[in-house]
């Protein structure tokens, strides 16, 4: 069964195309990271899954139900952490949780939920208007967990959280996934996604530019690493040796330096052994892994421009500063 499926999903705002002909399938039980810079159309997509916004064209199903026509079937079965939400400032944190329990007709213990998302008993009785951004995020996460949803849809769940909170969020995603919950969450920060995701989809300017596992992505863009070796003698003489090692795609020599592009991690050690066997003396060695960050940049053309800004403009201050372009 598929948890989420979009077919030709498109949303335009006047001239601006926020989401462009999106075909995406998320299988039951997987943890899917929805990546992309701010304004890529992630929130617009999620808003259409939740029936907050209506598609211009195409359709989406969530848990097999049409996101627009059968939204009432979907909402009791999913947990939602929306983007750009706010809490009810006058109501206590506990009342928020109780309200969610009432609407979901669930049997959860409010205190257990509050504890799970890291809100203390003291916090729980305070009006939520006094909460920090991170605490609001925790509260909304708690509301999303109520009723043991089959699917968690979280839009930028790490926004407003400190590194500790982000780790806790990742723990939570993992434990929900172990219970069999499908998790679909968006982020503009790759590191937050790679640690917990089975697969990721990268969205850029409303278009899906890649869907794969993190490792798969790395391979698909010829990623891997570059290895730079400084030899005691001219590197020219060892070109053939290096080329003969499997897992090395490209070798260049200049002076004493031998530069190799590596796709198979195991090739690094093999190369060193091979060079040594061929009588070369390695004086220094440097390895540059293709970082996930540069991978991400490659996929999104290094652009985190403001196109489609309106779709994501309720993004959090944290998100904005991390992104560094607003």
């Amino acid at each position, binding site marked *: 069964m598929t948890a989420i499926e979009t077919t030709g999903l498109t949303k335009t705002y006047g001239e601006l195309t926020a989401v462009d002909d999106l075909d995406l399938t998320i299988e039951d039980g997987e943890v899917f990271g929805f990546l992309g810079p701010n304004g890529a159309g992630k929130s617009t997509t999620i808003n259409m899954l939740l029936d907050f916004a209506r598609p211009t064209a195409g359709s989406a199903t969530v848990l097999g139900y049409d996101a627009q026509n059968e939204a009432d079937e979907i909402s009791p079965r999913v947990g939602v952490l*929306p983007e750009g939400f706010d809490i009810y400032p006058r109501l206590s944190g506990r009342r928020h949780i109780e309200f969610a329990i009432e609407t*979901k007709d669930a049997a959860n213990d409010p205190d257990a939920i509050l504890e799970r998302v890291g809100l203390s008993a003291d916090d729980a009785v305070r009006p939520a208007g006094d909460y920090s951004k991170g605490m609001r995020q925790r509260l909304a996460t708690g509301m999303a967990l109520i009723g043991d949803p089959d699917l968690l849809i979280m839009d930028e769940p790490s926004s407003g959280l400190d590194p500790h909170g982000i780790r806790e969020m990742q723990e939570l995603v993992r434990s929900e996934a172990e219970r069999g919950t499908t998790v679909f969450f968006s982020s503009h920060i790759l590191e937050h996604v790679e640690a917990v995701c089975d697969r990721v989809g990268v969205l850029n300017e409303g278009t899906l530019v890649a869907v794969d596992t993190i490792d798969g992505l790395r391979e698909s863009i010829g990623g891997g690493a570059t290895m730079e070796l400084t030899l005691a003698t001219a590197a020219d003489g060892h070109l053939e040796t290096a080329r003969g090692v499997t897992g090395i795609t490209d070798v260049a020599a200049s002076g004493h330096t031998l530069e190799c592009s590596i796709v198979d991690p195991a090739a690094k050690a093999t190369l060193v052994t091979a060079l040594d066997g061929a009588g070369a003396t390695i004086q220094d060695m440097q390895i540059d892994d293709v970082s996930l960050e540069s991978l991400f940049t490659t996929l999104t053309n290094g652009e985190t421009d403001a196109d489609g800004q309106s779709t994501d403009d309720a993004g959090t201050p944290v998100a904005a500063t991390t992104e560094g372009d607003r």
Partner: protein
Amino acid sequence: MTSHIPTVARKEFEDAGRSKLLWALITLLVGIVVIGYTAIWYTADDATASEVLGFLGFPLQTIVPIAALIAGYMAVVGERRSGSIKLLLGLPPNRTDVVFGKLLGRMAVVGTAVVLAFLVALVLGAAFFGSVPVADWLAFAAITLLFGVTFAGLAVGVSAGTSTRGKSMALVVGLYMIFVALWELLTAGPYYLLYDEGPPVEAETWYLVLEQFNPMSAYTTLSSNAIEGEVFPFTFQYGLEDFEASQMTPAERYAGDAPFYLEDWFGVIVLLFWLVIPVAIGYYRFTKTDL
């Protein structure tokens, strides 16, 4: 699917109960009753509780709608702007539950304020003027309650149909101005242009129907029937219409037996009209919109 309207309404009422708004409204309404009763008790010697009740009609017809509009105009659009509506709609309640839950919640808030004001009036009437005009009191309270929830509903309807706080406020203020200050210009003005004279006492039927549909005069007409004495409508007069005529109800101005829609009781329908139509339009627009 089970309806989440009561759950949303309850949360709404509880939320409002913690706001200064509800308490300001109650203080205002109760304050007017207390000041009014005390003032009359000081100045008039032989007033009866029932007559004094009639005095309330004048301040209530201005304060109740303003209070109700304030209580309602942010109901839906406020949550839309803050984003809390996403938290709410992410849960099982759908847009229908939100609009009608909020409608009930806000009507309950306004209703609470009106009922408290009337309870105080009942007690003060008994204490100062020595009688308890139960029938008048009940009828007048019920009419005022309807008047209040009508305006609360109108405001919630507007708040559901608009996308920004500013638009909602502008619409609500504009409607209130039309009811109170511009009605004569908008009805007697065209009449003047059509017939070269302001509407006389026995004006054309269409004009009387329009008069009938002003919620302010619907309230005063109904109230005048419920209590001793008369509650005069507080609306701006431009002299387009004969002053004498403006103080009469459409039923009184109609030559012969008035059709049912010009009779005094029809004011109830008029008030319900101003409740239902804005809610229907606002609801329709809200279900179609992107959040």
